[in-house]
């Protein structure tokens, strides 16, 4: 994988991870171009497209687009599931994750991604093991990490609060840890 971008329906970049060396200028250009391309696509369209000499794999979860660029010989479907597994990890960690969680805890989103993917390749695909690594790190903290949830300033309901996952089985209601 060459890079992963998370952006909102309004085109705001929420997370960027680059696995190939590029200049800041080039990164900004790529981001602008891709966000535009992906946002212009209609809902039922296929999740893959050719872009420059890369393959783009993207999927929308509630208000957020997850978008990966992979190389020619890489597998599109498994990349789609990489995205899903990442969403599951975020969801499990934050408890019904929504876009706001990622905005306010961006550093956590990066840490979880690093445990899951490294150098653009899957490092650990077991959900349990990835979360174990993250939770262990949390335990190492002097004060138990406080996740910032829905600060008062933005209390209005919006897409940002919508859980990203809508495929979670109804009976396993995930408890937010706090």
């Amino acid at each position, binding site marked *: 994988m060459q890079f992963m971008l998370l952006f909102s329906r309004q085109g705001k*970049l929420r997370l*960027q991870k680059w*696995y190939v*060396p590029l200049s800041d200028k080039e990164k*900004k250009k790529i981001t602008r171009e891709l966000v535009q391309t992906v946002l212009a*696509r*209609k809902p*039922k*369209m*296929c*999740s*893959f*497209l*050719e872009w420059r*000499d890369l393959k783009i794999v993207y999927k929308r979860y509630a208000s957020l687009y997850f978008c990966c660029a992979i190389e*020619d*010989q890489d*597998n*599109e*479907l*498994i990349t*789609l*599931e*990489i995205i*899903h*597994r990442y969403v599951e990890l975020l969801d499990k960690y934050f408890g019904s994750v929504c876009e706001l969680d990622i*905005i*306010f805890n*961006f*550093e956590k989103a*990066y*840490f979880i991604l*690093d445990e899951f993917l*490294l*150098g*653009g*390749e*899957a*490092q*650990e*695909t*077991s*959900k*349990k*093991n990835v979360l174990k*690594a993250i939770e*262990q*790190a949390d335990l*190492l*903290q*002097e004060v138990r*990490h406080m996740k*910032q949830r829905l*600060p008062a*300033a*933005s209390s209005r309901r919006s897409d940002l609060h919508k859980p990203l996952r809508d*495929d979670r089985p109804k009976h396993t209601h995930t408890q937010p840890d706090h």
Partner: protein
Amino acid sequence: MRGLAVFISDIRNCKSKEAEIKRINKELANIRSKFKGDKALDGYSKKKYVCKLLFIFLLGHDIDFGHMEAVNLLSSNKYTEKQIGYLFISVLVNSNSELIRLINNAIKNDLSSRNPTFMCLALHCIANVGSREMAEAFAGEIPRILVAGDTMDSVKQSAALCLLRLYKTSPDLVLMGEWTSRVVHLLNDQHMGVVTAAISLITCLSQKNPDEFKTCVSLAVSRLSRIVSSASTDLQDYTYYFVPAPWLSCKLLRLLQCYPPPEDGAVKGRLVECLETILNKAQEPPKSKKVQHSNAKNAILFEAISLIIHYDSEPNLLVRACNQLGQFLQHRETNLRYLALESMCTLASSEFSHEAVKTHIETVINALKTERDVSVRQRAADLLYAMCDRSNAKQIVAEMLSYLETADYSIREEMVLKVAILAEKYAVDYSWYVDTILNLIRIAGDYVSEEVWYRVIQIVINRDDVQGYAAKTVFEALQAPACHENMVKVGGYILGEFGNLIAGDPRSSPLVQFNLLHSKFHLCSVPTRALLLSAYIKFINLFPETKSTIQEVLRSDSQIRNSDVELQQRAVEYLKLSSIASTDVLATVLEEMPPFPERESSILAKLKKKKGPGAVSVNELEEGKREGGELNGGGERGGDSSAIASTPSPSADLLGLRAGPPVTAAAPSAGSLLVDVFSEAGVNDDGFLRFVCKNNGVLFENQLLQIGIKSEYRQNLGRMYLFYGNKTSVQFVTFTTTVTCPGDTLVLEPLIEGGAQVQQVINIECLTDFSDAPLLNIKFRYGGALQNLTLKLPVTINKFFQPTEMASHDFFQRWKQLSLPQQEAQKIFKANHAMDTEVLKAKLLGLGMALLENVDPNPENFVCAGVIQTKAQQVGSLLRLEPNAQAQMYRLTVRSSKDTVSKRLCELLAEQF
């Protein structure tokens, strides 16, 4: 971090961009003063401010301070502070040398801390930054961590991928050497996560050094077999929506694609069983309705199909794969339809499955017409192109033409090229070809590049049976009130050459033709007008009765005083020519164009160029086959086989694409069409020389026969597989081949497999060094006529090279030792291709020597070392290639312990760059 949350809320509440910038500047000032303040900040505050800076950076603003504070965090022993420090460095590192040293120091401390969480953080940071400095500092240490017995699993995982990243950025610094076999054995690790991480590293290393990592094949097969045959719950947390270890399975299948099918019968049997199981599972009812289940399952299926296509040797599996994809073509999931179309494209190029792919033509045409997503339609168009052959060409071309009318603008040019190529390649009667191209111009004139209309003219000129038809058709096409300028160009050229063929009909008498052309003149651009003026002077020659009318036009102020120099000059010169020259002279000057020499179709070159150098894929032979198929330009059909032996190399040319001057550059502007518009810069047409730096590809192709080559060499032994493809629908009778070798330098044992003529294996042993290549003679009867063909087999002395790695010091010492004048051969020659470093490197690696980095003081130069293995002796050779980009020249120096070797290597190589 309360402060961070508040800050983020503030930013989010900003009503305008200006307010946001104001708030950020305020925060930056605050942080700056905190960092500069006298009071030492505690770790928590430092972490908070660094995190705020990171947030600001990620919003898209520039950050020019805080790096030092982030580096300080690295040495904190509080995990979260360290973590934030590393995150900042990973996102915002710049190659400030001062800082790099400090960062590397901190990383070094964490790596040796024996605290697995700290080690992982440090490894993540290296993997995220992946700079050369870090490779220099840590590439030696990480392999040790990776294979050490007491390393924690999670650290091993990070180490493997960290090493992969470093290998990608600085392959020369990552040397596996003694660790190789232990790294390969990570495939056997008990921990699935370790295997998942390590296999990515092994795959990448195998691509570059397949021989060293060869043992991974059997390990990968047994691992795969265990996963494939496991029940869906066996692998616990590595089961994903009832699919056992989908990521690992895909990576295993991907790794196997770096190698040919396993030679060991048992391993191969086991693998075939796995592939069959995967295909069988696709037919089973799904274990879950979730899309994740079917995606994971199908991800493995598609990867398995890629492997089957890569092997291209199991007809049964290929046909099953094709049927499976056929089912997906009509699946309700758009994603699956897309992938099935994509995957079938490669299946279409395999001789075993080409026919099976063709049976889906109606579905694919339907997809082209009805898919709502342009990227899916694009895939359908690609597949139609790939599955096209003589039997369905008319249907496919017609469908593509009608699609073109509504096609997305972004893909029209490529579609036009494809239609033009198919029409030319499969034209049985050339009136169909002419109709197709004129239709192309009518429908999508703007997207018809020069190459396309040059090509139609080239073909019409070379084939006298179509000239009259072309003249008639283009004349009719020009009747349309609004026709595309490209049509006027083709019309001007063709009527100028062949207007006489339709002049007998009063409806297209000379004057009518002229008036028709001239009615378009004023709407055209300068180059087209220039072309029309040339057509006019040809008219004067063809039809003396038009002379006065045309002279009048040329004499008019708008021509003879035209502000454009080219137009004015033509008007003046043509006017003079027509009034001074006698009819004989005029007839000589304006004689019919001679046939164009056949070269590679320039439109095909253009299509390949569009695809870019990326088209040079892993499997060169397959690439070669596919491209080779297209190369058979329609115009060649008249020639005898010996003339066609010079068909330029498909794959070599692919490599050269980036290199070669743009195809259009050599073609003069439309105005000067009186000269050969198709002259391209020198195409090296010696099939033999194309294989000096590579082992696989298409050696020869004409309209009857294609010969592909795959070869491998070890020490002084080699094995060459020749694949003979019959391109006709008729059987070849009495097909015999003989291999002869001048002198006693090579032992060649041709073994023809009983019954099948498709494949021939030649075992090669090199007895001593040699210069003359062995010859392959092929005889067969085709439709009663005896075909006789002799080719040089591309066995060259460099095939027996063993690469030798050495340090700068050793290199120069040996260089000095080989100082006898006859030991050195040198050549200075002009570059035939663009001087692209990566291409040069690839070629030198293909040569078989070790490419030595950091040896030559001048980084532009290349030096290589290797030993040629013959039965009689070993010949050490050193090579130095000095490009001079300014002069577009190379100086090549070869020194070997044997004079004939230096000389031969020099000769072989001088043609390669």
